[in-house]
């Protein structure tokens, strides 16, 4: 009897404790404040805007950059910088807005921006390389920046989130950077969340939300469940398998937006068979893009014709291509191959390819398997090898023919980054070993061309040439998935660049 009594008391206490917890969290949400909780798929242990590779400061609306990427036309546009100009592509005059203040009330002037950019270059070798700045001179709200070499894409590099402008006189960059954005940091728990409050003095009009939480969870299932439980209002990249469940919930909207990423089949041109353009054309024809998009990506991707998504001004209109096994067979026959006893061979040598893949992007190994299966039907033996760090392996070894690889092609609205890194003989991502003097000349010309229009035309021409020569084969552009509580969230825009998330116009109903 006494035992039962004790058990009863313990049970009541446990229930009371749990009820107290649940009512506590309900109070937190239901205090009438306009607040949103966004759940992101990467965790940050530091908010340092110039170093953090998850770009949380920019995404959470704490900081801003001088130049903005317009999500509609994918062109760069002024943000903290009012305008910029250069005659030679090496000396740049940047006029700053004169109505911007940092979240501590200090004005954002030329000296502050100079100090911020210098700090970014000092602390991040990647930004130092990206900006290539030789000197900065600040007078009032005007900056004169000289780059080490003529660098026409300089303004587009100022879109990079790690060039965010911060007040460097404040020192706690890791936990409380002071930027110019619509939200100031109220507290930061590394790896978990950053709590934000509206900055009333924001230059573009104070945010409609009073508070916001930008939290992190790297597990896709847990993110989906967080939306279902009401623990989050906006969820980035929910589990693909959970999409049907989420869509079935009343008041949940799911958006699938194309990105600037391309999944490609990188070709090693230093291999004997790959040197033949008809073999490359055959491989290109063998890739069943539509089926890969529909089955592996469940429709959440766009078929790729080239490296750049078609919405970019420098994406060419590609000629229609025939694909399929029979088309591939024709190309291989033109390359001198013939099928003997079910094996595609040339001069008695069977066509055997080594295909590298890696699991950091779960869809790439599956794409490799689909290709292996299709190639097998044509008598091509494909040996799939799983590697861990593709960049390192491809650069250090030449014993492979193909790699399923994923790349950002124009993250800041300019084609220069991708074309230089991937097709210039000195490019760190030129794993194919492309060394085509005509192509190099075109890229060099791009590197000295100032002005968006001229650069676009040249980049388009280069992309067309890459397609004609079949330097790599492009498979698809994966989408970004965002699910959110549409009964609560208003004015949400899924940014294609994924740079801009919490904005001053985001609101609750």
């Amino acid at each position, binding site marked *: 009897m006494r035992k039962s009594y004790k058990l009863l008391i313990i049970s009541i206490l446990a229930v009371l404790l*749990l*009820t107290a*917890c*649940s009512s506590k*969290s309900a109070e937190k949400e239901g205090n009438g404040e306009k607040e949103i909780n966004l*759940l992101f798929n990467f*965790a940050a*242990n*530091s908010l*340092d805007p110039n*170093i*953090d*590779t998850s770009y949380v400061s920019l995404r959470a609306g704490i900081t801003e950059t001088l130049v903005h990427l317009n999500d509609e036309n994918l062109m760069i546009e002024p943000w903290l910088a009012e305008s910029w100009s250069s005659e030679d592509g090496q000396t740049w005059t940047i006029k700053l807005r004169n109505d911007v203040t940092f979240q501590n009330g200090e004005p954002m002037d030329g000296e502050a921006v100079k100090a911020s950019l210098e700090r970014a270059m000092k*602390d991040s*070798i*990647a*930004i130092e*390389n*990206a900006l290539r700045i030789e000197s900065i001179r600040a007078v009032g709200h005007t900056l004169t920046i000289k780059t080490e070499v003529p660098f026409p894409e300089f303004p587009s590099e100022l879109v*990079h989130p790690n060039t965010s402008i911060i007040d460097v006189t404040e020192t706690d960059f*890791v936990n409380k950077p002071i930027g110019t954005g619509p939200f100031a940091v109220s507290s930061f*728990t*590394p*790896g*978990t*969340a950053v709590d934000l409050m509206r900055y009333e003095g924001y230059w573009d009009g104070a945010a409609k939300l009073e508070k916001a939480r930008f*939290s*992190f*969870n*790297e*597990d896709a*299932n*847990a993110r989906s*469940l*967080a939306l*279902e*439980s*009401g*623990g989050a209002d906006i969820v980035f990249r929910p589990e693909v398998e959970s999409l049907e469940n989420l869509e079935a919930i009343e008041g949940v909207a799911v958006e699938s937006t194309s990105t600037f990423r391309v999944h490609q089949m990188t070709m090693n041109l230093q291999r004997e068979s790959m040197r033949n353009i008809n073999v490359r054309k055959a491989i290109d024809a063998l890739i069943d893009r539509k089926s890969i998009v529909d089955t592996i990506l469940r429709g959440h991707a766009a078929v790729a014709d080239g490296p750049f998504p078609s919405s970019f001004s420098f994406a060419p209109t590609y000629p229609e291509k025939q694909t399929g096994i029979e088309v591939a067979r024709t190309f291989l026959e033109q390359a001198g191959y013939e099928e003997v006893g079910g094996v595609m061979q040339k001069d008695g040598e069977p066509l055997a390819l080594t295909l590298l893949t890696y699991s950091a992007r779960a869809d790439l190994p599956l794409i490799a398997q689909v290709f292996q299966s299709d190639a097998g039907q044509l008598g091509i033996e494909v040996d799939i090898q799983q*590697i*861990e*760090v593709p*960049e*390192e*392996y491809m*650069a250090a070894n030449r014993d492979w023919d193909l790699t399923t690889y994923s*790349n*950002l092609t124009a*993250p800041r609205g300019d084609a*220069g*980054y991708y074309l*230089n*890194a991937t097709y*210039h003989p*000195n*490019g*760190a*991502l030129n794993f194919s070993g492309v060394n085509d003097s005509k192509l190099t000349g075109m890229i060099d010309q791009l590197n000295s061309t100032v002005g968006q229009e001229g650069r676009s035309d040249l980049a388009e021409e280069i992309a067309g040439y890459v397609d004609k020569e079949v330097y790599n084969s492009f498979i698809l552009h994966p989408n970004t998935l965002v699910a959110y509580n549409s009964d609560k969230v208003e004015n949400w825009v899924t940014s294609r660049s994924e740079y801009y998330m919490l904005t001053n116009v985001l609101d609750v109903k």
Partner: protein
Amino acid sequence: MIRILSRRLFEVAIFLLLITFASFLFARLAPGDPVLSMLRVDDVSVTNEQVEQLREEMGFNDPLLVQYGLWLTDFVKMDFGNSYITKQPVMEMLLSGLPATLELTAGALLVMILIAVPLGSFAALYRGSWIDQISRGVSLLGAAVPSFWLGLILIDLFGVRLGILPTMGRDGFISAVLPSVTLGLAITSIYVRLLRSSLIDSLSHEFVRAARSRGISETRIFFSHAFRASLPPVITVFGVSLGSLIGGVVVIEVIFAYPGIGKMVVDAIRARDYPVIQGYILIMAILVFLVNSTVDLSYRYLNPELRLKEKRKS
């Protein structure tokens, strides 16, 4: 005493030297290049010359022994360096995440004790009964269910359906409940079976029969003699498996967005952030050493035979 202490300290120094050297070698011989992460080749246009130049500047082209020597020199000066990626001081980073991981580990141990002790004890006392069968079932289930899956089930149940427990982050005691239960359930099974078999063994010892013949109550025999005598093997296994337990926390930390050291080191391994990896291994080595020393000391308390032997010697 001083002699024992200095001997122990010397052993620790050798142990740390060996483990840091081995981990240094493994980290550097494994595929991966921190220079590519630092230069962010997937986001910023970089030339091969820049990659090679940074490699040279960072000393990655030096012989491994030279690199290790430099690290060791800094280590002796208690300088653990900065993370290549976040630029933060390594020890500051790791020590900020350590409390959360230790909290989860302690929570999991509490859950384990709350389940394993009664279940293992009853299973031993009532061998072959329904409660023994239940303990067997619980152990099998615990061993078979992956902790990430269990975590999601618990989130779904307590976060989505019942809405009574937080499912993410570290915000007071209550946020540690679900991750601790998940981790605790995952490790419980082995201890239930271990405690059961150890208790059965203790209960069959002569000292138990002698106690019974002297008319000591069964409850006292169980708690004061048999249970205590059954603990050394359980504690030994605990001491040995603590390292892997802390290492296993990482899955739980990811699912529950619990900001611990495990997740931090996985990120460091991905980016080949060597200073963070070295710092983590060092902390783990010290922790494992401390726990094993405590386990050694606990034998003295739990095993009267050991105490008697020491007394006789003195």
